[in-house]
């Protein structure tokens, strides 16, 4: 019987057998889940250790700083595997998202040695990197002494690899020459439309295909459907208001946040095209957005969709994914659609948010930390997360190609995969990297709040915004 379970585990290692199936079959053989998992870990360790010395830092202990997020949950669920494979002990602190980045900033800026590896977004690395708080991971990725042959860095979607690498020169393209790999992409979200199919069907609505339709459909829902408003988008006084649906649509019209003039960054929010898009966006919120839009972050946007308070959202695709699950009034009623607001655009241009893993420059166990990052962003773990947990959207092409994953998504979230496939090619970070990112996007959001609140006309507001942004760029010496 011991023999049998080991064969079974090897099958998992060779990816001939899913983990869940493995546990089920082990159960049929009368082996408890604990013992089975142990066998599995053992098999995996042996398999990976054949080509690479995973045990090189056995006995070390590292600590992670994690955001409370399904990705972290998926990793924690699989963490025993890593511990067994490497002999490294891993502890972790999970903080709620509301305060997570403040906590990260506080830790890094005080030079804390507490945490070795932490979750971060790509935008944050534009601050953390130049501040000297992050390790350039190229030195690990490119070094075979540190990175096993199975890691397959190239398998990670190229746009994501590029989006987490930057030279540190304001305005210089992400992933360009001399770019430092400040973080490893882990999971990501792109922005598209999720809608309440039940309501759409009842009222004979179709998912919108351009901005005019979006506004029209949203207005119709607000007018016709009792107790429901048309379109959920974020609106809080924060950078987070700019980066999802808004910037995706904005970019679809070819608008930019900054331009380079004579080697200087210049605000580009007050072009005619930008003003036109802003006018539409503001009008849409006023007509058919949430009434308390200016306090909306992703969770209000999501909650409203799940509870049937909004007809659709233009936000992160996985938000619609999560809201389709049980515990929500509209569970099972949601559908997804890729969205290109510009009728002349060839394809959607979703801005992306990338949950990534970064390494603290103050870490005293960097090598062990890298082993963890390597494992956590490995195909093995990504497959486990994608098949059995909510580790979506995966960053590896091989995982998107995995049939088990595809079947699972197609089954429970019809349309999600199609939405992804339509959105993915044009998806990347559309912001211009620069260290005043949070400062200036927050001001952008604040400015938009004033427009929606009728404190200032759109055009005038954008001119003022551009002026203020330029002034701050000069003050910072950019």
């Amino acid at each position, binding site marked *: 019987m011991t023999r049998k379970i080991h064969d079974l585990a090897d099958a998992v290692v060779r990816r001939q057998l899913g983990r869940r199936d493995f546990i089920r079959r082990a159960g049929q053989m009368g082996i408890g889940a604990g013992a089975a998992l142990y066998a599995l870990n053992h098999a995996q360790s042996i398999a990976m250790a054949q080509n690479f010395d995973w045990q090189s830092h056995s006995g070390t202990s590292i600590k992670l700083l994690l955001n409370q997020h399904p990705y972290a949950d998926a990793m924690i669920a699989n963490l025993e595997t890593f511990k067994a494979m490497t002999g490294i002990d891993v502890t972790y602190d999970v903080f709620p998202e509301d305060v997570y980045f403040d906590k990260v900033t*506080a830790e890094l*800026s005080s030079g804390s040695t507490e945490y070795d590896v932490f979750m971060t977004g790509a935008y944050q690395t534009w601050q953390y990197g130049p*501040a000297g708080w992050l390790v350039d991971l190229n030195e690990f990725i490119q070094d075979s002494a540190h990175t096993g042959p199975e890691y397959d860095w190239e398998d990670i979607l190229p746009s994501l690899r590029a989006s987490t690498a930057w030279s540190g020169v304001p305005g210089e393209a992400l992933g360009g020459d001399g770019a430092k790999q400040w973080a490893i992409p882990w999971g990501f979200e792109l922005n598209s439309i999720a809608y309440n199919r039940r309501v759409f069907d009842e009222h004979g609505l179709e998912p919108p295909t351009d901005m005019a339709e979006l506004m029209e459909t949203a207005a119709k829902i607000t007018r016709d459907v009792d107790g429901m408003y048309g379109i959920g988008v974020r609106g*809080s006084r924060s950078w987070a208001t700019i980066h999802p649906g808004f910037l995706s649509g904005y970019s679809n019209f070819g608008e930019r946040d900054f331009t380079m003039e004579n080697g200087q960054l210049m605000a580009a929010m007050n072009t005619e095209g930008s003003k036109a898009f802003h006018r539409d966006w503001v009008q849409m919120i006023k007509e058919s957005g949430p*009434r*308390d839009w200016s306090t909306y972050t992703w969770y209000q946007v999501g909650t409203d969709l799940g509870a049937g308070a909004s007809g659709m959202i233009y936000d992160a695709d996985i938000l619609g994914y999560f809201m389709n699950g049980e515990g929500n009034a509209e569970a099972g009623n949601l559908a997804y659609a890729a969205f290109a607001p510009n009728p002349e655009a060839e394809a959607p241009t979703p801005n992306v948010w990338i949950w990534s893993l970064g390494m603290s420059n103050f870490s005293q166990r960097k090598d062990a930390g890298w082993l963890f990052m390597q494992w956590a962003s490995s195909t093995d773990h990504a497959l486990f997360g994608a098949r059995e947990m909510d580790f979506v959207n995966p960053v590896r092409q091989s995982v998107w190609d995995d049939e088990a994953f595809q079947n699972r998504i197609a089954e429970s979230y019809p349309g999600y995969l199609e939405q992804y496939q339509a959105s993915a090619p044009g998806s990347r970070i559309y912001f211009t990297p620069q260290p005043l990112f949070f400062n200036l996007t927050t001001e952008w959001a604040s400015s938009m*709040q004033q427009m929606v*609140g009728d404190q200032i006309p759109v055009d005038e507001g954008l001119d003022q915004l551009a002026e203020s942004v330029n002034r701050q760029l000069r003050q910072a010496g950019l």
Partner: protein
Amino acid sequence: MATEAMTGAATNGAKRPLMRKVLPYLLSLPALLVCIGILIPFGTAAWYSMQRYNLAFPMTRGFIWFDNYIMLFQDPSFWHTVRVSLLYTFFTVGVQLLLGLGIALLLQRRTLFNNIMSILLLLPLMIAPAIASLMWRLMTNPNFGVLSYIVGLFGFTDFRWASAPSTALFTVVMIDTWVYTPFMMVLLLAGLRALPRQPFEAAELDGVPQSFVFFRITLPMLTPYIITAALFRMLESIQQFDIIYAMTQGGPGNTLMVFQVTAYLERYQYTNVGRSAAILMVLWVITFILSNIFIKQWLRLREKARGVA
């Protein structure tokens, strides 16, 4: 403990015992020492405020004297912050003072009901503002919010609470009032109940009208309490962070960008340590001046009260 040392030191009655002179210092020193530890970071922060110091630009760090302050003073949004903070403080302290005084007067008599009521009214104070605000956001949500529903019954079907510029200040002042009026109430209630009875009994015998009694006897005698309560509330109000940050993060627009919210964003989101420190130093100076005025008044009144007694 200290007793042994003292008696031992003073057996010679012809010598002034050192202990008597030293004792008050010995008693107050531990508290002071513990707090002095906090003074060191305070000094460091003051030092930061005179530097160009943005964590994301480590290369540009340098000492720039008062440039951070000068930049602030030239920035209209900073003066907006000053204005909003003072307005917020004025409204919260004012409303809570009136409301707290009113409730204290209602609960003045020492009955079991009044005592229980005064404890129950403390409940809002016991819920951390940071969490309470989550609940307020839900309750003022236009779809699911019970408060939106209730004001809707009165015809305000489109009341937008914290999300509209025109009502945002009202909303956060209301929440602040909900949280902190109990604090005001309990201090003033204590004051009311500690007032000597004779003047009131005399006034009642003479048939003096109640309004006269209130303005000419109750209020003046209550002033020291009012000052103390207002002082503590003022200190917290002008430094308000939890409620505003949780409700609107300073929005909509710049409507509620008070000192600490501005400084927090500068520090933890924009990593601009120098500017953040400068903003907070200005806040500190304002707080210091206001408290000094309050405390001077309080000491003066206390001296007066003691002189009479």
